[in-house]
Structure formats: structure tokens, C-alpha cells
């Protein structure tokens, strides 16, 4: 299994960008900059026209990517062309997975993903109840399927997710949709406690935007941090201001470094668990 490896030894920094934002070429450079800055795995968004779990920042990124011509096939090309040495997670919505290929169901999409080097999936609109066929296809091709645990997730639903999850579990730090915030919610700690005995790594996302946030999240017990909107903001601002691609890439790399360093500090502050 590919994804779990990203969390061994030290806390993982897992950034998100929408593939093709604001265009194919620049986006390649941005994703590579994140790897350069210390990403341990990358969530690479495949843009869907109705992203119901995303806040304004990522919605706009998806609009930019779609308008610049991103399609499912181009996404697979993008992944093939990407020059990074970390595991890749495809984050998208179920309809794109379901529609792909000639046969019914998610198998064709998973097969093609495995071929181009994707290691797992996060599908925000696919609850555990509907995930059977995708889980099966992932098992067939040796890919991971990540689930999102929300502050409102009931104990019964946690059990259902636990059966299906692999790679890591995505702990949603607070209610709502994606987007960078200034505070880190108390709900985070509570969520981490609820799943403390799961044997997959726990990565916290939603609202993290500084090294200090990352530090606090990791010191609270997370095995990793997921950061999307704060990075997408850099792409969006650079795009609007017409900044050169390499400058934007340098800013992304710098924030990536800050976040990774924050996560590492956080790990030193907490009592080290016994690793076997």
C-alpha cells in the first residue's frame, strides 16, 4: 500500500492543488514546487463541475482549471508527466469516476489511475454506504481509498468507514466546506481521540494555513496535515496579478516548507508514541 508509507518516521505534510489551475503547464510547475518544498504525498484535484464540498477558494480553482481545458484524459496525462517522487492521491467527485471508460462502475477509472501512477482516492461525495464498488476496484489494483471523518460523524458511521478506509483517514477539522481559517477548532482534538485506535494514519485538514497551525495540529496527535486553500490562494493571487510562474512556484515552495517544518516541530512537542 502506497499512501501509508508517507506517514512513517515523521508527520506528513499533504498539500492539495487542483490539476490544471490556472493552466496545464503552470500547474505542473506548482505541483512540483510542493514536492520540492517537502510534501510527503500530494492530493491532486480532478476538477468536477459541481464540487459541493468545496468552499469558494477551491471552487474558483476548479473553474479556472476547467476553463483552461482540463478533462479526465488530460488529468491522466498530467499525472504521467508530473516529475515528483511522492505518492499521489486523486481527489474528485464520484460522477467522474463512475462515468469513465466503457464498462459500468468505477473499475475502468481505477485501472487507468493505477496505470499512470496514482496511489489512492479521496471522494468527498461518496459515503461508506455507496463505496463498495470503488473499494473493490481499489483492492484489485492495490490502491488506497481515503475517507473523511467530520466532527458530526456518528459512532455507527465511524465503524462503517473503518471497514473501508485505507492509506490514511482525513479528519475534517471543523464543520463546513474547505477554506483557510485563522483558528484551529477544538473539534479537531475530539475527532482525533475518537479514532485513536484506528490502525491507519490520521491526517487533519480544513482551515490549516500556517506553520503554527500545522504545529498545533500535529502536537494534538495528528500524523499529518492536509493543506489546500492556503496554497490555492497563492496560485489565485499570482494568477490575478499576472506574476511569473517561477515566482508563484517559489512562494508555494516556501509555504510548503513552513508547513512541513511546523508539522515537524509539532511532533517534537508531543510524547512520542511507541512505534513498532
Amino acid at each position, binding site marked *: 500500500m502506497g499512501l501509508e508509507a508517507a506517514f512513517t518516521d515523521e508527520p506528513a505534510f499533504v498539500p492539495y492543488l487542483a490539476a490544471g489551475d490556472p493552466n496545464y503547464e503552470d500547474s505542473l510547475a506548482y505541483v512540483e514546487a510542493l514536492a520540492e518544498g517537502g510534501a510527503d504525498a500530494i492530493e491532486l484535484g480532478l476538477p468536477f463541475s*459541481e464540487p459541493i464540498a468545496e468552499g469558494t477558494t477551491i*471552487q474558483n480553482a476548479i473553474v479556472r482549471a476547467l476553463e483552461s481545458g482540463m478533462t*479526465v484524459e488530460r488529468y491522466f496525462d498530467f499525472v504521467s508527466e508530473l516529475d515528483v517522487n511522492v505518492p499521489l492521491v486523486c481527489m474528485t467527485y464520484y460522477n*467522474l469516476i463512475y*462515468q469513465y471508460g466503457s464498462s459500468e462502475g468505477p473499475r475502468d477509472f481505477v485501472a487507468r489511475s493505477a496505470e499512470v501512477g496514482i496511489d489512492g482516492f479521496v471522494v468527498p461525495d461518496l459515503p461508506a454506504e455507496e463505496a463498495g464498488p470503488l473499494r473493490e476496484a481499489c483492492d484489485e489494483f492495490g490502491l488506497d481509498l481515503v475517507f473523511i471523518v467530520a466532527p458530526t460523524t456518528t459512532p455507527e458511521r465511524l465503524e462503517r468507514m473503518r471497514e473501508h478506509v485505507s492509506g490514511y483517514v482525513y479528519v475534517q477539522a471543523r*464543520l463546513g466546506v474547505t477554506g483557510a481559517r485563522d483558528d484551529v477548532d477544538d473539534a479537531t482534538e475530539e475527532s482525533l481521540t475518537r479514532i485513536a485506535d484506528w490502525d491507519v494514519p490520521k491526517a487533519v485538514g480544513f482551515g490549516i494555513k500556517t506553520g503554527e497551525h500545522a504545529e498545533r495540529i500535529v502536537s494534538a496527535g495528528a500524523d499529518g496535515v492536509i493543506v489546500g486553500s492556503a496554497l490555492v490562494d497563492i496560485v489565485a493571487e499570482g494568477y490575478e496579478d499576472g506574476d511569473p510562474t517561477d515566482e508563484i512556484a517559489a512562494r508555494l515552495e516556501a509555504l510548503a516548507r513552513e508547513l512541513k517544518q511546523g508539522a515537524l516541530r509539532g511532533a517534537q512537542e508531543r510524547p512520542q508514541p511507541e512505534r513498532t
Partner: protein
Amino acid sequence: MSTDDAHDPKFGEYGGQYVPEALMPAIEELADAYERYVLHNEDGFMDEFRSRLADFGGRPTPLQYADQLSERYDTDIYLKREDLLHGGAHKLNNALGQVLLAKYMGKERIIAETGAGQHGTATAMAAAHLDMPCEIYMGETDIARQRPNVFRMKINGSEVVPVTVGRGTLKEAISETMREWATTVENTHYVIGSVVGPHPFPKMVRDFHAVISEEAREQILEQTGELPSDVVACAGGGSNTMGAFAEFIADADVALHAVEAGGSALTVDEEEGVAPNSATLSTGDEGVLHGARTKLLQDSDGQIMESHSVSAGLDYAGVGPELAHLVDEGRVTPVNVDDDLALEAFHRLSQDEGIIPALETAHAFGYVEKYHDDLGDSVVVNVSGRGDKDLETVIEETTKRDLDIAPDMSILQQMGGSGL
């Protein structure tokens, strides 16, 4: 009131609960409330709902024999007059039901999406009536083209929140309301406007509207002693359609026709991601949108298309999962009527029967106008709403087309402007 299993989130392959994890507890709570209050009348919920529908809404609505149309088409045409419900459309059945349910559930706040503004208006009225704070999410394109409904919502005390992402129409408004709900699920109920979305919405919205066919079935039996040969209703998301069909589904001899918007053409433009129609049942294929597996207008990747219809209320790229299932089963026949025929039927009903229908409703009459020879001898048509909201569009679109049946509007040009 319904015969299917309340716990089953599926209609055959369709339906389900494809929503972000943060919303799952809310829809599970809602499914539980639906079963207790709606299906089992706990705390007398359904009694209060029916009583408020009568006193506040004006139910029952009449089933009226249409003298002129019956003669013209040489078959008996009966009009189920949902246009006479408070607010001027069937929408109040569902809005009142859900706002009341939110109260029984102890929620403190209502949110809703709206496209043309009819559902938003009905929700705003129901929220004012039941003293609940209410926010309506509406695409900015729709705000611009449906100003009278924006006024009505605001006058009833609701907030109207503009949705600026994407094309700014119904599809974006639904997505945005789902996002807002994900942030506020603990004290807020989302009043969805049609038989779409995750379980239990499609079943619950159908049950609130089923009063349409429940009344119509009794009324026609009383008036003719027999069931109708056909029931005809327009279909966008499908709420008036399911309401008009629900109690006839078990009557195997009653033919059910769902009339979709054929728009300007049934083809799609893959390059632009646009379908110049909203004929989801006739031309769409299976996929997942807004929490349910159903039939969709989508490109070959699975990206959702921008739909089109002269009628804003039919302009949606998805359709209720139960309707999709009933079509696959062969129980409901999907048909479509293009913009031109809908406009012609709009004028026909206005001139022959003295009823100005909503443009959505006009599609149902367009079907009867063109295909009455294929219909049986007793046809119930659901007049889902009245057309006051559409007059400006109708005059503009009619002038463009030079329709024979259209009244001479040159007096307006002499006066300058549209005169409205």
C-alpha cells in the same frame, strides 16, 4: 401514505445518499423525522400539515372540466388547478410541509435554494407563516431575470443570498445551499425545492405533493365515476410530476406522461458543455448529482451540462431519481415539448380557457396540443402554476417568433417599452 419502504434510500438503481460526510448526520436525522412525523403522523404532524394546507394554502384545489379544450381536442380534458394554490403554484405543498417539519424537529432556521424563484417564494411565505427565519440562495443570473420573485421573498421577510460562482443559476444555487447546510446542520433545515437530492428528500417531497393526485383521483371518480385514461404533467426536477402521478402509479391502466423541456434542440454541444434543452428523462444518462444517482445531462467525462429552457423552472440538468426509475420501468412515458410549442400552448390555454399558465405548465399543454390523438378519452392535466411571473418572457419570446396564435402586441411598441 406511501407503499414503498421508507428506509430504502433507493428507487431501483437510482437515488441514494451521495453527500459529503459532514451532511450525513443531518440527512439521517431527517430520514428519522420523515418516518416519524410524515409516515406515522407522530404528534399529529400530518393533521396539522393538512389543516394548514387547507386554511393557509386554500386546498383542495378544483379539478375543472375544460370546455373549449375538450371540444378542440375531441377528448375530455380535466384541469387540476394547482395554480389556485396560495402563491400561484404547487410549490407551497412542499415548502409548508418542510418548514413545519423543521419546527417539529426543533430547528431554528430555514435555508433554501431557488431557480426561477417559485420555490423560494413559497418557502418565504411558509417561513413567515410559521415564524421561522429564512435565507434563500439564488444565482445572480436568476436574481436579475426573476426580479418580481426577489421582491416577494424579501417582502415576506426572507434574506436573498446571491450565488456568484459558475453561471449563477439553479444548479449552482443547489450546490451552494448544500455547502451552507454543511456548515450549519446543527440548527438549520434545508428545504429542497424538488424531488431531488439525497434520501429522504425525493420521497418526502413526493409525499408532500401527493395531495395533488390524491385529490385529483377522488375528484375525477366523483365527476365521471371512472379513472382517467391519462395524466399529463410537466417535468423539470419533477415535483409537480411526482405529485400528480403518485396516487395513480398503482392504477396500471392510467397512462402517465412526463413532459420535459425540449428547449431549442435535443442535441448537445460537448465543446461548450451546453445542452439547449432540459430533457433529462428523454436524453440524459445515469450519473450522480446533488446527492443522488439519477438521469443527467452530462458530457462524456461526466461533467454536468448547462441546460436550457424558455421556462426557468424546468431548466435543470438532473431529475428526481424516482421519475428516472419509473421511466426505466416503463410506468412513466417521458416526452418533450420545445420552446415554440410551449409558447403556442401558453396562448391557447390563455385564450380558450381564461387561464394564464406558467411557462413550465405550458409544456404539459403543448404535449396535449400536438399529441391529443394519441391520448385516451379522459385526460387530467396538472396546471402546476399560473403565468403572471412569465409575462415579460412570453411577450419577448413571442415577438421573436411571430406565432400565428399570439395576440397583436403592437400597441405596446406604440407606447414605447414593453409596457409591463
